[in-house]
């Protein structure tokens, strides 16, 4: 049954990063055959949910400058960002904005026909380039449509990748399941790019799509690559109840307030200058502090929350610039933000961590790159600024696309060796270990348990006891016998896929908790009650987690790259 498909470049994941990479590679040379593999239909990737904006310096004549964007990013990261990477991001992104405009992106415009920008948290200039409040959606659509121009891009809709094939440290390909018919297939190529996005579904209360599970990260981890900085999970201040769907930061960028039960605009007590537009970690912590001080609201579900007030913006402004969140509010919360403040609560939103890579997006394997949220090239350090993630996806999408294409061109006639050894091991792992597994607990209950544990034990504020308790719970869940698939059909077996996803969630959740336990300081999104201060002497370094065949990950440290800014205290 070992079907082998051979392409020149394999891109796993079709979010912003994946599609951007595909276009760059495809336009480089018509003869390169590029496969875009995705476990959802290509244009359904999680990136469509991104709402607020893409940060870029466009108006230097109005006072913005590259330097300031770099510094904002590094300061936002609590100085854990690699500074050369942040520079690369900021220098590159303006051309991506223009490129998207040429490809048909419906950017919101100023009256004179130029691209408009709005305020976003943590920036010293309004530089979130936006298209209403559906930025990610429009970007995805623009990239997808542009991909259709190239006959050498092949879309593998609903192909689930399970593992990386490699020979030593050289990338060879992926093993995948074609979901439609259940075939287990080997796809090989000289170059590969992993763009599998974030893994926020390891939390219950999360803004992520159901498809945002860590199987991409886990795939790299199992192959021997390090996952970096996984303890840094961003909690976005404004997720609605009960679903966790996001109200974009753009809502505050347009002038929305956060209020507590005393009707007070409490952010003035925490970030006197930037108020609601302080970085997300700051706002989320302030919100939890307010709630703990008893100044929160109770949602009908029983959850504590605060309110986001947009009523003063007026109907016209909301309908024009925040149409999407008005729709979301009415539909999923029953509240029209024109008339009423909406209940919000900090919600799992972004993983700063990911597959360890360098400034070019290159991984520890030759021929394999990583781009987008799945990567951790350390642009975002300990805390990402809003609107910098779609930027990252676009920039490293094009960088890695270019590099992967170069390698593929130089290896055009070297058909990768097709040794079946790893393929057979993987087949055994997923078919014998999972598909025909003999667990008795319901995997979906296990998943609920796991994600609830993460919500409870490693939320905005963390402490040693909780984290250790959480880790214990995850490990005990892991040791239960739950790996089994009730649905034994071959075609479109989502049950099987779900169980594989849960399997990867276990490992990655464990890494998040272990990283959080080891980092005995508070930095960016990682806030320890027991170590409330930043500790640059001991922890100004990245966490790496390597797979260990005996189960527990092997934790290591990795230095941060500094070019020009020395760490200072972070105030807003």
């Amino acid at each position: 049954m070992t079907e082998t498909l051979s392409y020149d470049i394999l891109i796993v994941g079709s979010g912003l990063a994946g599609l951007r990479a595909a276009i760059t590679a495809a336009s480089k040379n018509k003869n390169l055959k590029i496969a875009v593999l995705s476990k959802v239909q290509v244009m359904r990737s999680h990136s469509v949910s991104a709402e607020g904006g893409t940060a870029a310096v466009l108006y230097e004549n109005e006072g913005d400058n590259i330097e300031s964007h770099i510094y904002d990013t590094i300061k936002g990261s609590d100085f854990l960002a690699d500074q050369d990477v942040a520079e690369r991001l900021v220098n590159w992104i303006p051309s991506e904005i223009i490129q998207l405009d040429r490809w048909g992106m419906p950017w919101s415009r100023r009256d004179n026909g130029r691209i408009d920008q709005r305020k976003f948290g943590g920036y010293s200039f309004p530089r979130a380039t936006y298209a209403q409040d559906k930025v990610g959606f429009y970007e995805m659509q623009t990239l997808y449509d542009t991909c259709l121009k190239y006959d050498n891009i092949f879309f593998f809709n609903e192909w689930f990748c399970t593992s990386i094939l490699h020979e030593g440290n050289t990338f060879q390909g992926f093993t995948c399941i074609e979901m439609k018919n259940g075939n287990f297939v080997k796809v090989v190529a000289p170059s590969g790019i992993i763009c599998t996005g974030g893994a926020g579904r390891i939390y219950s209360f999360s803004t992520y799509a159901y498809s945002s599970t860590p199987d991409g990260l886990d795939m790299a981890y199992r192959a021997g690559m390090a996952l970096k900085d996984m303890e840094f999970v961003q909690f976005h201040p404004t997720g609605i109840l009960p679903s966790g769907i996001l109200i974009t930061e753009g809502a505050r960028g347009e002038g929305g307030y956060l209020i507590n039960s005393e009707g007070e605009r409490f952010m003035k007590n925490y970030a006197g200058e930037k108020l609601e537009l302080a970085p997300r970690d700051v706002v989320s912590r302030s919100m939890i502090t307010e709630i703990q001080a008893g100044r929160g609201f109770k949602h009908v579900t029983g959850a504590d929350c605060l309110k986001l007030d947009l009523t003063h913006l007026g109907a016209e402004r909301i309908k024009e610039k925040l149409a999407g969140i008005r729709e979301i509010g009415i539909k999923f919360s029953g509240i029209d933000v024109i008339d009423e403040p909406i209940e919000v609560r900090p919600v799992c939103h972004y993983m700063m961590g990911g597959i360890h890579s360098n400034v070019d997006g290159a991984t520890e394997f030759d021929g394999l790159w990583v781009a987008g949220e799945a990567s951790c090239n350390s642009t975002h350090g300990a805390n990402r600024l809003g609107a910098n993630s779609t930027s990252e996806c676009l920039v490293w999408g094009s960088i890695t696309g270019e590099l992967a294409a170069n390698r593929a061109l130089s290896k055009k006639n070297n058909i990768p060796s097709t040794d079946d050894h790893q393929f057979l091991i993987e087949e055994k792992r997923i078919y014998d270990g999972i598909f025909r597994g003999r667990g008795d607990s319901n995997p979906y209950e296990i998943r609920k348990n796991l994600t609830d544990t993460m919500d409870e034990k490693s939320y905005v504020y963390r402490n040693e006891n909780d984290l250790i308790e959480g880790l214990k719970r995850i490990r005990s869940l892991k040791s239960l016998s739950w790996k089994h698939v009730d649905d034994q059909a071959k075609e479109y077996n989502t049950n099987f896929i779900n169980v594989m996803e849960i399997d990867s969630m276990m490992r990655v959740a464990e890494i998040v908790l272990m990283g959080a336990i080891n980092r005995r300081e508070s930095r960016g999104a990682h806030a320890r009650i027991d170590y409330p201060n930043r500790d640059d002497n001991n922890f100004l370094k990245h966490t790496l987690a390597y797979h260990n065949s005996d189960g527990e990950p092997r934790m290591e440290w990795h230095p941060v790259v500094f070019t020009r800014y020395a760490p200072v205290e972070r105030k807003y």
Partner: protein
Amino acid sequence: MGIKPNSENTPSTGGDIKLKSGREGLMGWLNPTRYGWERVSYWLQRLTGVGLLIYFIGHIYETSSLVNGINAWNSMLELTQTTGGHIFLLLVIGASTFHTVNGLRLIFTESGIGIGRPGRPDYPYDATSLNYKQKSGIWVAMLLAAIAMLYGGMVMFGDVS
């Protein structure tokens, strides 16, 4: 098995997977479920169009008896000028009125007139194209069809000799 890249660049290993077409076929044309007045009008326009075509062909045949002289004509009249024939004619009157009026509406809308302009849709979304002009056009067509049938009935049944 074997990879089958197709023109859409969405390869599949194919295999023995069977799919069943989900097309509704003719049922989809009249589709009983709730799609609004425009769907009703679509269906009536089609039905009346075909009905009229059948009548039209019949009518040509009917009148062709003329060439065979007065007897042939009269025996044809005997066939058609019956109560059943009149009821049929009544339906034709209704159908042609509806088809004509609704057809004129369609000619306008399908030329992009009276259908509205694109603009920013605000939630809850109401499609501009399904505006009251269209709906009233459909209702007027139905109303006129009813009136025409009433009038036709009066003419035919009122003073049949």
